[in-house]
């Protein structure tokens, strides 16, 4: 039995110790906002934060979590009030939308570390895959949210 701290709440989980956090969230806890895309930490659809640090949940085993505080897309803000979420909607970033949970969690981590990212910063950090081709709008949304957060 594991007790996980997710989005400010405690959850008990009965699962094998090597179960990736991704599948704990999705199948054991029914939190399906975190997506499965590749299973090998290549696409970033499963990006969550562990103690504020960005991780790929598909390669993060349950027994590595310990007391850490996990944040998923569901816990990013109470009512989609985070400036990144607001810009994502305002700029019509999502198309199919499947990768966007991971994109947002990656972008949040970027802005936490770099207050005003350059295009090069965004290129280096935002390596998640979007097959619909929303990259130009993601870039624009990050710049705009950075301006809001700084103000």
């Amino acid at each position, binding site marked *: 039995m594991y007790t996980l701290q997710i989005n400010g709440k405690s959850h008990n989980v009965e*699962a*094998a110790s090597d*179960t*990736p956090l991704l*599948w704990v969230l*999705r*199948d*054991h806890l*029914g*939190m*399906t*906002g*975190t*997506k*499965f*895309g*590749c*299973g*090998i930490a*290549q*696409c970033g*659809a499963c990006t969550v934060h562990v103690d504020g640090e960005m991780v790929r949940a598909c390669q993060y085993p349950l027994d590595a979590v310990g007391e850490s505080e996990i944040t*998923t*897309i*569901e816990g*990013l*803000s109470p009512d*989609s009030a985070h400036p990144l*979420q607001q810009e*994502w*909607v*305002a700029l*019509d*970033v*999502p*198309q*199919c*939308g*499947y*990768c*966007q*949970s991971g994109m*947002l969690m990656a972008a949040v981590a970027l802005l936490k570390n770099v207050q005003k990212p350059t295009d090069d910063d*965004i*290129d*280096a950090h*935002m*390596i*998640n*895959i*979007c*097959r*619909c*081709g*929303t*990259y*130009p*709008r*993601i*870039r624009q949304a990050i710049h705009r949210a950075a301006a809001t957060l700084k103000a």
Partner: protein
Amino acid sequence: MSQTILLDRRKFLITSAVVAGALAISVKILTSDAKDQESAASFGVWLSILQDGTPVLTTPKIETGNGTNSSMAMFLCEELDCDPSSVRLEEADINRDYREGKVISSTGGYLAWFSGRSNQFREAVQQAGASARERLKKAAADRWDVAMEDISSSDGTMRHAASGRSFGYGELALAAASVKLPEEPQIKKAEDWTLIGKRSLHQLNSARKVDGSGVYGIDVQVPGMLYASVLQAPVQGAQLRSFNAGTVRTMPGVKKIVLLGPKNDKSTPATRLSRLRSAIVVVADHYWNAKRATDAIEADWDEGAAGAVTSETIRARFRAKLDEPSKTERRLGDFEAAMAIAATVVEADYEAPYQEHAAMEPLNATAHFQPDRLDLWAPTQKLDTAMAIAVEESGLKPEQIFFHPVMVGGQFGRRNPNDETRQAVAIAMAVGKPVKLIWSREEVTRQGAYRPYALTRFRAGLGPDGFPNAWFVRQVGHSYQRQLDPDFDGFDVIAMRPIATETEYSFDNVNLECHNMMTHVLVNSFRGSGATFQVESFIDEIAHAGGADPVELRRWLLRNAKDPGWLKVLNEVAEKSKWGKPLPRGRAQGIAINLDHGTITGQVAEVSVSPDGKLTVHSIDVAFDVGTVINPEGLRAQMEGGILFGLSNTLREEITFKDGRVEQSNFHDYEVLRMAETPEIRVHFGGNTGGKKLEPCGETPVPPVAPAICNAIFRATGKRVRSIPLKKHDLSWS
């Protein structure tokens, strides 16, 4: 309930009623089919005005993120006079389609993309808005005892200017349901539109895509559900001989092993691409346990001759046919005679690879089979095919099969065959409990229904003026249609586009030929597929050989084009990209133009190549002719997305074979475009010719990307690229 038949050219049957306390309007397109007339009491397009004023539009269109729903909300609100962002879109119930005699699909079918070409469907949506509006207006007029003409509608409200009174639509909804109009209103003419094409509407469902609340197929949770993971024969078409069942069965959480295969194939020609491949399915309590047990499988497969296939053997087989004339041909003028007197002859062979769709949501489907009922949650792009497959596989009647709407995480053509849906039904029948089947990314990559492989040979004869008057194409291509019909021997609808269709280039003497090929893998529709890369690159070769500017040559080739959009698009993109502007060595522009699904698109790519061969795509200018634009921002998003899909295809994507197996497995070896390689994209609207044409725009931006880039590479380096992806080529120069 009241019914009116609008007997103008559109022949709508319009019904209004109170349903669940709301005003409900249905618009059914009448046909000459008597059976359709009988079922006309039901719906094609269904509009409800709820008591809180929310318009709910139910249609048989699946929203996959391409903006279909936003377009339909705009059609509705052009007539309904309310805020299109307040519209709730619901997916029609396909079960009802069968119970009530194709009442839904007769208005345009279950298609994921919206084609403005279906004018009848668009007009049905607009008619629903107009008929609802007039009933609401009449209800307000009755309430206030004033003339309808004195009431105006806007922003979801009826207003009587003289008295300053107003009612929200919701307050009038019930009364409006019993209104009888002397005649139904006519919908606006296109020139009177104030919303469609004039304003941009945000995508209607972004909110649930940024907070994790959206439920995609893979997210469905059904009480008592088990999870399935699948390993299909690694050589497509191979058969299972044996495997370590004892070991797999005792892995943690494993509930059952299900073997699937073509022995009990229930597919029909129309559903052939969904036929069951030989597969081992592990059903477990959780997906991770199912996946781990699947990874532990050691299987022996009867691979047959396919086990020796490599990309080289496929290429050699196709290459041999490239030298053989084909009886599948089309001729115009006298090609041989024209070639005999040609001042210059240009010849080249091109190659286009197999490619995988790589939608971000891995293929999946959830099914619950009971003896008299089948429930399905399938993120498909073709629900009518999914229904046909569910009927075949389960043996139930369509009326007993219920598809529950789910969001779809990308399609690009891979969610047409519905092979995963057939598997899910077969597994659910074997297990007797709800089962969610999820393909691993490795299965998705290796068990694809790929973009067709093709070799294309061109010959052109140029006159003394440098312009071509003889045009020969022989293509040896993997035929989509041959897979469905072994006797098919025409120009393949996918592989031969735009060689045989969808072009208005004019040559006096033409000889087109094709060989329809198959290999051990399947091909299928793929966003923007066809031979545009080959054709538009070779046109560039002709321009170079004849000393013509590539834009000038295309203008000449389009001299007889009936569609004025070609030249308008070509001129727009040439002007806006500053075609021909001076650039330093190693940096250049390239152009390409095509017609796909009704929309002409022209692109100019600007690239630079460093002397050691590093390619940078700086920008792509795009112009297009959809006719009349519906949702400008939505269109811009599709242009961006389509161009980046095409760029990804061009740079690195290729499925190859060794020992019959697909050599790629996941995003580390099937690399797709990421942020860092995204160029600036400039979308120009000046190519549109307006009028009654409202064409879709999702596919058309894809095909010109590869030739525009490769043509730019030639001008930058002098190196002609005759195959993609570009990762295979040394682009260095000095």
